């Protein structure tokens, strides 16, 4: 019975981490849009390539934040949550 409970905990953590990383879609689309617009801008005005590139990198980094939140949650679910949850389970059994 204990094995089953621990198995459910580990499996749910892995599933949760996978589901959390679906958030990677958003930043992907957003950054793609940003880079596409930056390419258009450089094509129209090649002389302001430097400014456009730095602004684009800056915007990309800010847009990436939501994806990184998901990454942090996924990392917590994989590396931290299973140990904690198993500890809690052991304490409740005692």
């Amino acid at each position, binding site marked *: 019975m204990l094995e089953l409970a621990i198995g459910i905990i580990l499996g749910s953590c892995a599933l949760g981490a996978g589901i959390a990383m679906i958030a990677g879609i958003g930043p992907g689309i957003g950054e793609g849009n940003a880079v596409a617009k930056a390419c258009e801008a450089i094509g129209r005005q090649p002389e302001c390539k430097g400014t456009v590139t730095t602004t684009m990198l800056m915007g990309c980094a800010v847009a990436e934040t939501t994806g*990184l939140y998901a990454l942090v949650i996924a990392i917590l679910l994989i590396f931290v949550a299973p140990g904690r949850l198993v500890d809690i389970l052991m304490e409740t059994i005692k």
Partner: protein
Amino acid sequence: MENDKQRFKLLDTVYTAMMILPIVFGIILKIFTTPLSEGISISGAKIFFTIKLPIQDLPITESQVHSWLVMISITGLCLFLTHGIKEKADTKRQHVAEWIVENAQKLVDGNMGEYFSGFAPFIAAILGLSAFSSLLALFGLYAPTSDVNVTAGWAILVFFLITYYKMKCGPVIYAKSFADPPLLAPLNIISEVATPVSMAFRHYGNVLSGSVISVLLASGLQGLSAIVFGKLPGFLGEFPFLQIGIPAVLSIYFDVFSGLLQAYIFAMLTMLYVAGGFPADEYYRRKALNKS
């Protein structure tokens, strides 16, 4: 004259040692404290020892020690570059030092305006510390920026700066800025708190994801080379040939490009938030209006 020259050379050696020895020390420490293990291991910062304190124990971790090493190294670099400085630049190192100072000043002046031009040393310090901390991963050491506590410390420092400059207009105006419009006050407070959280997580997440992907790729290549070259006799069959060179390509992106980009972005966001918190021109105009 001869004595001066000797002293100059001696100090140069000391500064160069200050630059290089911390990294060598870090590598030696890493070699001696890492247990031999098979396969991959993704773990957080190692705790060397814990100092017992009454309220909260203070663990001295790998990330702390490595960031101290980076600080000593950067101090050595700065002392080396500014050693024997003259009014008119004639040595290479003085040109480099002047280039760094001028560019930091230009960056701060361009992004923060005249009022904040005294911020240049602070921004340059953040930029240098963050960039060199991320680059430490190139030596196989634990990058301090892949520990959330380090970046959170910097972000909290920046948060205090932002709040200080927002308070400078007057506490009442600061409190009022949350209730504008009144219904959205809770959201405004959340977004105020989210600023340091997002800054810390952005930097830490980028560096950590790079190191996790590098470890996964290295272990994957080990398995692949065992399949491809496993039939070779003896030692050749066990040697992971595919691990040579291929992870380095990824390391250029994740360690060098991403680390430097995140350092730049952290400094840039610091400048934008601090300068945005205190509109200096408007403040002085209002002050002049009140006086007249």
